């Protein structure tokens, strides 16, 4: 996974690996990450996810070899609605 902004700062690294079963969704990868780094749990309601250069929804399965990025709402956007497409 790659982490940006406050997420990177909270964990102290910009990249890490988490172990998840085959077919795990983005949400399940996040759960594994925040179990290892409980400091992140509070940020979940507004977390955005991306794979490659695309935003992805939390229910999308993550395939082997894909790197999931997670980060907060972007700087200029309204922060009241999580976005993905």
């Amino acid at each position, binding site marked *: 996974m*790659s982490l*940006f*902004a*406050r997420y*990177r*700062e*909270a964990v102290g690294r910009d990249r890490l690996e988490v172990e998840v079963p085959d077919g795990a969704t983005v949400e399940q990868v996040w759960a594994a990450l925040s179990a290892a780094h409980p*400091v992140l749990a*509070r*940020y979940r309601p*507004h977390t*955005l996810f*991306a794979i*490659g*250069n*695309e*935003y992805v929804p939390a229910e999308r399965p993550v395939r082997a070899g894909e790197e999931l*990025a997670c*980060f*907060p*709402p*972007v*700087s*200029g*956007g*309204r*922060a*009241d609605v999580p*976005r993905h497409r």
Partner: protein
Amino acid sequence: MYRVTAEPLSADALADAVTVPEAGGVVVFLGVVRDNNAGRRVVALEYEAHAPMAEAKMKEIGDAVHRRWPAVKQVMMAHRVGRLAIGEASVIVAVSAAHRHDAFEACHFAIDRLKETVPIWKREIFEDGAVWVGLQGEAPPAE
């Protein structure tokens, strides 16, 4: 040209780059670092980007502009990362079109979309601390 860079941005460079012989109007937007946010004195800003995704999202916005305003000739966007002083430009969007009305509309649309969808974050540096901007930025430290 859609670029994330640590170098200072130039309005003239982007305006020149979008100027083509058949374009009569160029609109340039510059986002500049303000000295305060909600009354608190800011001394600098730091920007961080998911650079490859940010450039891809900027290109998507440019493509959307060309679809929506066929009279637009060129679109360019550059966003700076790293530490910026008050008054420096953090982002520049330049749009050329045969007629100025299209250039204004398209540039306005592009910067609005950029601020909503391009993965770049900013941290405000105060005299006595720093905070990530946005919903989560205002949360107290996590432990």
